[in-house]
């Protein structure tokens, strides 16, 4: 079963997995609340997705099919190495197709293809605490969450409006989960925030260095903070994807030469490929 000899299935030892599993269950029962857990040292540095990997390792089984994306792409270093890590230590099947995956580990994007019931989306989280840049003390932020005292975040967004005329946060945009807990959605573009709302898939978040796990169960209300006169809006582009022609996906700007040449392409490589295939089939 296990690909790499000398290692337990999915790398982590059983007691660690049980501890993470208990934390995940509590996280699901208290949507948006950050459950502390005993994060382990992993064979890659903090900042490379150690939290996401530990959550995936605790969740994944031999029947799963894993997809890993980094900024939407299946073929970047981080995605390739994590996918290979689980192929070797857990012997699981892997895929690049969103529709075929049962577990999707992601860094900084939600796939364009709508997720379905039964899928699990695992986010890699650098800083789990939404109030951390406003209040550095953990004891205080914990109290603020206990009292649902989120005025400071509204003041921060208001200051954005006072200074720039609009809310200037474009990624890691704070959300309120189930009307109770303020949550950082990890550094996904705010373009992806609406996808979290009432998503049929289970969303799990793992922060390795900060030792926190949190969750958004399926069909849970996730509201991006805003004001009545400054409603939440997502990014838009004048261009369509230069490769597949998709006009409704999140686009990356790619510099093509040193004379100001640039093109816009889908950040989600699987979405881009399937759009191309569809277009070719139509022609």
């Amino acid at each position, binding site marked *: *079963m296990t690909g790499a000899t000398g290692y*337990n*299935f999915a790398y982590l030892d*059983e*007691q660690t*997995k*049980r*501890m993470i*599993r*208990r*934390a*995940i*269950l*509590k*996280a*699901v*029962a*208290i*949507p948006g*609340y950050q*459950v*502390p857990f005993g994060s382990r040292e992993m064979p890659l540095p903090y900042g490379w997705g150690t939290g996401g990997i530990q959550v995936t390792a*605790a*969740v*994944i*089984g*031999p029947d799963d099919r894993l997809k890993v994306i980094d900024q939407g792409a299946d073929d970047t270093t981080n995605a390739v190495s994590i996918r290979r890590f689980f192929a070797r230590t857990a012997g699981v099947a892997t895929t690049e197709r969103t529709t075929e995956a049962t577990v999707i580990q992601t860094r900084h994007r939600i796939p364009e293809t709508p997720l379905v019931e*039964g899928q699990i989306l695992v986010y890699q989280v650098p800083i789990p605490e939404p109030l951390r840049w406003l209040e550095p003390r953990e004891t205080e932020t*914990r*109290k603020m*969450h*206990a*009292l649902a005292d989120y005025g400071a975040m509204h003041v921060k967004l208001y200051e954005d409006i006072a200074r720039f005329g609009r809310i200037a946060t474009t990624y890691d945009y704070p959300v309120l989960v*189930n009307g*109770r*807990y303020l949550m950082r959605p990890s550094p996904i573009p705010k373009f992806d925030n609406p996808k979290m709302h009432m998503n*049929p898939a*289970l969303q799990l978040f793992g922060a390795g260095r900060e030792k926190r796990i949190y969750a*958004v*169960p*399926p*069909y*849970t*209300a996730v509201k991006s903070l805003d004001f009545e006169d400054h409603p939440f809006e997502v990014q838009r582009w004048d261009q369509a994807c230069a490769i597949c022609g998709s006009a409704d996906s999140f686009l990356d700007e790619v510099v093509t030469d040193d004379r100001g040449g640039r093109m816009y392409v889908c950040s989600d490589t699987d979405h881009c490929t399937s759009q191309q295939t569809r277009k070719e089939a139509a022609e």
Partner: protein
Amino acid sequence: MTTADTLLPGLPDPVIDSQRVFRVVLDAMARPGTLVDLPLSLKVPAPLDPATAAVALALADVDTRLWLDGAVGADAVRAYLRFHCGCPLTEGPAAADFAIVVDPQAMPPLAAFNAGSDEFPDSSTTVIVQVPTLDGGEPWTFTGPGIRDRVRLAVAGLPPAFRGWVAENHAGFPRGVDLIFTSGTRLAALPRSARLEG
């Protein structure tokens, strides 16, 4: 005859089977009120049902204190859980991380278990309640996270006051206990986030 002679085996493949049991419990917790089936068969000491024992075997260990109600506290069960989980047993429900109830009629109110604190609501007890059936009782309707519109759960064999306890447990959100109902090889979960309607 020593305990080792009478001790029943635990999960057939501890690594893979605890993952599979965890996934059905996770599925149940993420979709409150939905009935899920245990993905394996298990021989367990009476009066435990396979689903009850499987949840304990998959999730309890040396780090979790387990509380057993009077009916389940038989020597065979104690020895079985102590051996396979290695978990310390506690006498006080308020000190438990996991609690197993096999005689719901005689169980203490949910408020007797640890509901966690406002700062650390995750430190609460997970209460495993073994019941005669999960679909033959009075149907209760729930809404909340994990539930698309509403879900009906008809657990049988619960004490009359239980409905009130569930409502009270949700009212204290984010504090509160999380419930796992087990019967035979099936289970359903009711996290504190589930709101009782009607």
